[in-house]
């Protein structure tokens, strides 16, 4: 019994020991610019994706953009939309239809050459959208 206990403690201790740092990996970064459309709560967002290390534009990626309201996490979700690639390298466009004005956390899910999620805090107001004051 004592040996069993010792082994259990040892296993638990090993389980909690920090593992070696993750190998360097490719990460994405995004620059987001949203414009209000004439239809209420609709915004056209242009995303410029780049490799976070090399700054090279990320082309050929599948990009989905969703949004979550930080003031009520998990309750106000916008169904993710697929962004379409623009002729300019690393540039994508997505049209978002929000539930209300206010601060939203845009979730940009990138798959393809890089698998990553980028979160951008934006403030959407009638007629305009800008980075949330907190994210500046």
């Amino acid at each position: 019994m004592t040996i069993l206990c010792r082994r259990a403690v040892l296993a638990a201790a090993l389980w909690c020991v920090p593992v070696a740092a993750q190998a360097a990996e490719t990460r994405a970064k995004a620059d987001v610019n949203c414009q209000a459309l004439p239809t209420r709560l609709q915004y056209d967002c242009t995303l410029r994706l780049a490799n976070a290390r090399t700054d090279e534009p990320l082309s050929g990626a599948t990009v989905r953009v969703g949004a979550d309201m930080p003031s009520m996490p998990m309750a106000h979700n916008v169904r993710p939309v697929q962004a379409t690639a623009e002729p300019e390298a690393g540039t994508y466009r997505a049209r978002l239809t929000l539930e209300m004005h206010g601060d939203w956390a845009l979730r940009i899910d990138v798959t393809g050459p890089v698998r990553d999620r980028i979160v951008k805090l934006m403030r959407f107001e009638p007629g305009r959208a800008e980075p949330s004051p907190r994210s500046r």
Partner: protein
Amino acid sequence: MDDYVVGVLSNIGVLAFLGLSAYLLLLTGEISFGQQAFFAIGAYAAGIATAIWGWPLAAGLLFGAAAGAAAALVVGVPTLRLHGLYFAIATLAFAEMVRLLFELLRYQVMIDGELVGPNGADGFRDIRYVFQNNIEPQQFLLVIYALLVAVLLGFALLERTRLGVSFRMIGVDYVLAQMHGVAVARHKLIAAGLAGALAGLGGGLYAHLTTYVEPRLFDVMLGVHSLAYGLIGGLGTALGPLLGVLIDIGLLESIRAFAGYRMIIFGGLVALLLIVRPRGLLDEILVHRIGGAWRRWWRRRAAKEAA
């Protein structure tokens, strides 16, 4: 399965932990407006463990749960002798204190040329364990529900133990429970610790699901929702809070016409249910009736087979 459906199901699973956390305290008759604080502590602790210290996910989640439990015990010692409104206000004050402390918390470490860690009001980004380890959203969904099923089984077992009965006794009448020899303060402390661990575990899952947390995510709104899930779903069984989350996130989310008005409808639903069914849809009487009907059906079936 559609990514959006996976996302909604993941949210339901994560919120169920928070709902169950509040439910456990409701069983002991206490209304806590502060479970979101332990959810936040779990989220930050688990995020720091995996993103900065490089711990594996399981250890990170355990650490988040342990941090939530430890914080709940620390709060529990001075507050559990309070009752009703006083306890509710104390938990709310603690939760706001924790949220403001996270606004001040700065602990960033350079990893792969980038600063990672909590950065005050800007939040804690790059909790990227799921992406670093190529865990698909469906796989993470399985992790959430495997843990949720384990917790629900734990509740089913708890209801059959002396501890679970004592919790309900205290919830009905703590003075009477004390007269029957139940150590009320000790039992409430155990309930608070377990509730803190559940909220912490949920927070850890949430941080890894979204990859990003910030203090304002954990404001009183989240605490009110966690309470409402138990009150809507019912206090007769641990499935009650899950039903509450399903109604809020599942049903109302699926009816997109409600979109921006969801919170108003949800608030109205809570108010209505508190009037017509004060102990929720799956209250003790209904659960007892369902249990009785099930047992009768089972006996009849066994008798038929024997004949």
